[in-house]
């Protein structure tokens, strides 16, 4: 029986090589036919500079012999995320990095042959290019960037759909190869389609898509002329990208911290002081902030020296969290993710892109669930024992959790008259449930009736 193509053997889409995990190591095998050019590229001054600057993932050549596959080892980036879990600003940062690298590569005689968001990961708030085999020597006489159409389909058209049609960026989970202009055209007003940037991204491409004369034409020019044309194309792609920056608008949760009337300044200070002192005491290397909102507690954790991953369902709140982390240079990776409905595993054999929980399990020294428990219990209708079980599953040791009593105005508001369903939800029940999986180490009671707990995981 022929061997079964399995994702367990590593990635398989790129014929030039495969990426696979060996324990904690991330290795890449490069096909013998491509090995020499890949090694030459990685040893080029440009690739080395990008690795030093942290714009391309640091890579070491472990073995390279003529006629043999080369083996590369990449530095492992903590907590991989997928484009369907990014906020618009993260998309724009990833697209900008792709264009910057392509522009510099053109100048040095290389070209980017694969320009998709899946080639980018985030290390904290910083975008990093990870598919090191995506660069090759370019044909000096060709002024065509073959991956341009892929860049538009996978970066610009999803951003376009988000800005003009309101289609969520998370929908790209089902669009590995992005959108076609024809996918968007029926949903765009005709006048808008003739304005910038839609006429270059949707209207004109639609007009030309069946013109065989154009599609068969391969212009040849001098090297100087091709460099000029390619750099001009990258520049125009950058202009199109900047015109797709979403309009600033508030969402349901993006102004929550400033407007939360159930928290007085004293409550805020007490809660922040407890979380800050606890994080300093437990010295957690990696922290997961569930329901992070705009990242007030993510920043507290990052300032205490932790590497933070922040989950929230609100795209705008995640966007603000990312922007704040980016400008302060904090190690925070905001992710559009739902604790109650985690991103599923998708792709070939449902294994190509790991689920959110598979990526999170056992990765975090501390998991924070602040101001979210009542949403999980009431809005998402997840039973308390199941929430505690999932918390136990993700955390390696610590958990910081905020208890919201059923008498709390926000709890009552979410219940909308179904209070009898939560009659059993007392603090005693809370302690009894969490004691099955955790031990209580400390607790701080706030003036508004809520309380914050430090829990330690039972083995």
């Amino acid at each position, binding site marked *: 029986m022929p061997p079964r193509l399995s994702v367990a053997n590593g990635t398989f889409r790129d014929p030039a090589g495969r990426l696979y995990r060996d324990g904690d190591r991330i290795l890449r095998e490069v096909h013998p036919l491509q090995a020499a050019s890949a090694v030459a590229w990685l040893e080029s001054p440009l690739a080395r500079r990008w690795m030093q600057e942290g714009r391309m993932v640091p890579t070491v050549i472990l073995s390279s012999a003529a006629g043999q596959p080369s083996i590369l080892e990449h530095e492992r980036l903590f907590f991989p995320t997928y484009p369907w879990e990014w906020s618009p600003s993260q998309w724009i940062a990833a697209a900008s990095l792709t264009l910057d690298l392509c522009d510099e590569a053109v100048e040095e005689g290389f070209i980017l042959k694969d320009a998709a968001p899946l080639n980018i990961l985030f290390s904290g708030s910083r975008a990093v290019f990870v598919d090191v085999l995506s660069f090759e020597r370019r044909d000096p006489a060709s*002024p065509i960037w073959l991956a*341009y159409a892929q860049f538009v389909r996978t970066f610009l058209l999803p951003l376009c759909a988000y800005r003009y049609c309101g289609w969520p960026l998370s929908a790209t989970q089902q669009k590995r190869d992005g959108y076609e202009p024809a996918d968007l055209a029926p949903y765009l007003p005709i006048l808008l389609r003739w304005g910038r940037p839609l*006429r270059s991204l949707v209207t004109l491409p639609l007009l030309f*898509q*069946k013109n*065989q004369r154009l*599609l068969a034409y391969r212009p040849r020019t001098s090297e100087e002329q091709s460099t000029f044309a390619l750099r001009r*194309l990258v520049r125009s792609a950058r202009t199109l990208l900047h015109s797709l920056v979403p309009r600033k608008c508030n969402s349901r949760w993006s102004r929550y911290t400033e407007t939360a009337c159930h928290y007085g300044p004293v409550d805020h200070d007490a809660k922040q002081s407890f979380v800050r002192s606890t994080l300093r005491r437990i010295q957690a290397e990696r922290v997961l902030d569930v329901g992070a909102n705009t990242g007030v507690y993510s920043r507290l954790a990052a300032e205490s020296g932790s590497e933070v991953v922040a989950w929230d369902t609100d795209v705008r709140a995640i966007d603000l969290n990312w922007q704040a982390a980016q400008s302060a240079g904090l190690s925070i990776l905001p992710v559009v993710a739902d604790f109650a409905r985690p991103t599923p595993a998708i792709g070939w054999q449902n294994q190509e892109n790991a689920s959110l929980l598979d990526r999170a399990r056992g990765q975090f020294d501390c998991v924070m669930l602040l101001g979210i428990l009542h949403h999980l219990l009431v809005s998402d209708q997840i039973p308390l024992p199941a929430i505690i079980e999932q918390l136990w599953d993700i955390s390696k040791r610590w958990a910081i959790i905020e208890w919201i009593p059923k008498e709390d105005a926000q709890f009552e508001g979410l219940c909308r008259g179904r209070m009898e369903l939560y009659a059993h939800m007392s603090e005693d029940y809370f302690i009894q449930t969490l004691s099955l999986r955790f031990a209580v180490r400390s607790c701080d009671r706030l003036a508004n009736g809520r309380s914050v707990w430090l829990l330690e995981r039972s083995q």
Partner: protein
Amino acid sequence: MQRLLAGFIHCLTGVQVLALLFALAKPAYAYVDPGSGLFALQVISTTFAGMIFILRRRLQTILRKMTLRSRSEREKASE
């Protein structure tokens, strides 16, 4: 209506006028390769970039010759 049409024409750049001319003659095929329209647009804008490149070169050469000529005339006059 005329003002609207004039505004519409004004908002098109040279690349897009060229692109529209290319688009007028097209055979109809049912199957379309992914990204083919975007590729075709790139071919047009590259052709346009090539024209700009050549034009700039010619202008630079003319300007250089004019500068050299005026400098030599000035030198002759000073002698």
